[in-house]
């Protein structure tokens, strides 16, 4: 028993926890991974250059990250709430709907990203044909004013299914008698949703907002497939990857420093947000 437990924990420590600390260690070095290149301890240099304005990628990265996180969090939860409201039933149509909205998660970021590149193909793609009717022509994923909006959209499309299922779980946990007991039989569906259903969904809202925020801060694999961080879509996660692996300098030390800063920013945003959402749950559910 001990052997199995320790083996499992060793794998978790070696490839889960050690890399976390490894990021911090590497961030204080000039590690490049070039063969035979010596590695030096360079102190806070990587961090200093981030905040000195000499590294243009960083300031833009902060802006792109904020836009991306806000857009994804709001869009994903709004869409998921709308979908969950209709797909929580036990009927056949609802079951098929649930399967469809979850399909992008099974397809994975690579296929999903490439699929949307096909659709927003600026030469003869369906989006170009459709928007062309309104006189709109663009390079889409290759255009500064479109790329970020589309990247946010595809990130939402990719992950809305999971958020929808979390909301459905929340909806199913609501006792149907509450609706009858509330004495609001006469009111419209919208008022009922706003006054009863949404407050009772508080735990699911907490889970979904945090999932979307942390996910949007840290993941960049979809952005990598769609634009590789070009055209204003280089979030901090993407920046860390690109300075480490996407350029000739292969500046892994600097990339690690960006990852550490991103991790700290994520905590600074996510922890108070979690506390606030938990407070909200207590206020609404008593």
């Amino acid at each position: 028993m001990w052997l199995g437990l320790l083996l499992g924990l060793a794998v978790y420590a070696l490839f889960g926890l050690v890399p976390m600390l490894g990021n911090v260690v590497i961030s204080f070095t000039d590690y490049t991974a070039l063969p035979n290149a010596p590695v030096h301890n360079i102190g806070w240099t990587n961090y200093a250059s981030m905040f000195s304005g000499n590294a243009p990628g960083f300031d833009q990265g902060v802006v792109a990250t904020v836009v991306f996180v806000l857009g994804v969090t709001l869009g994903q939860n709004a869409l998921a709430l709308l979908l969950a409201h209709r797909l929580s039933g036990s009927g056949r149509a609802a079951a098929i709907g649930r399967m469809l909205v979850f399909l992008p998660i099974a397809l994975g970021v690579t296929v999903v990203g490439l699929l949307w590149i096909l659709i927003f193909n600026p030469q003869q793609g369906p989006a170009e044909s459709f928007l062309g009717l309104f006189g709109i022509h663009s390079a889409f994923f290759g255009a500064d004013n479109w790329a970020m909006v589309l990247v946010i959209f595809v990130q939402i499309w990719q992950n809305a299914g999971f958020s929808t299922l979390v909301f459905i779980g929340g909806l199913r946990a609501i006792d149907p008698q509450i609706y009858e007991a509330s004495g609001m039989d006469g009111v419209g569906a919208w008022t009922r949703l706003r006054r009863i259903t949404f407050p009772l969904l508080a735990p699911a809202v907490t889970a979904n907002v945090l999932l979307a925020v942390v996910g949007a801060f840290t993941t960049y694999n979809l952005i990598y497939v769609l634009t590789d961080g070009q055209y204003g879509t280089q979030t901090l996660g993407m920046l860390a990857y690109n300075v480490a692996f996407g350029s000739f300098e292969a500046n892994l030390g600097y990339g690690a420093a960006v990852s550490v800063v991103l991790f700290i920013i994520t905590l600074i945003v996510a922890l108070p947000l979690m506390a606030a959402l938990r407070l909200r749950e207590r206020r609404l559910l008593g």
Partner: protein
Amino acid sequence: MQRPRLIGGVAMGLLVVILFLLPVLYAVMLAFESPAHFLNSPLTPGSPDVHNFSGAWSQADLGTELLNTVLYSVVAAGLSTLLGLMIAFPIARRLVRGSGALYTLLFVGLFLPFSVIPLFAEARMLHLYNNRPGYILLHVEPGLPLAVLLLTAFISSIPAELDEAAWMEGSGYLTYLMRVVVPLTRPALLIAFLYGLLGVWNDIIGPVVLLADPNLFPVTRGVYNFFGSNESEWTLLAAGIVIVSLPVVALFAFSQRQIIRTAIAGAVKG
């Protein structure tokens, strides 16, 4: 009251179909179009043409890559499910001191970002870079936290008397796990395996950073590179995506009920 509800239902159905089904159908339609037909009328289906599939299959070397992907994802997900069980059982049965702390430690793992830079450095140092066993070993950990959480919850819900009796009879721990615990926890094991499998199968950053030899590439990197080297051959690219997606879609079609049920149930507890 009835009319607006009906309209709302139909509108919602349309939204789901347009947003989630149409893009997928478009790729399938494109895959069956000849390039000439696509040039003339890009939005309508032509007479089905299967040349794109044979072209994509041979040009992108999808056969080798699919085999690599299956090997990586099945072995890595299998190992993380097995190790997950090895960790979860003592925690669920409180056989070790500090079970609660261990559980929290694993729970934190769900939120740890995928730290690719230090993983790359580790892979280099431990000779796990650019080889199959290394690639598999590096992909065991991402599936572990979820496997432990799912299995701990499931094992805790089975009465201990059911399995303890068998242990007392003196069989070894491993035999006992395999003979008694595995059959009892099969549904949770399957879910942990499936989620782990999807994670490894769909990884794109890992194959780009941790592999260099094209013979070792999984299908994600293969189809991604295929897009880079065949710009504007849209029908061929669509066929590539369709081929790559088929195994996952088949797997998903067969297991979606359990996968979706787990996600919904998790929401209530979480």
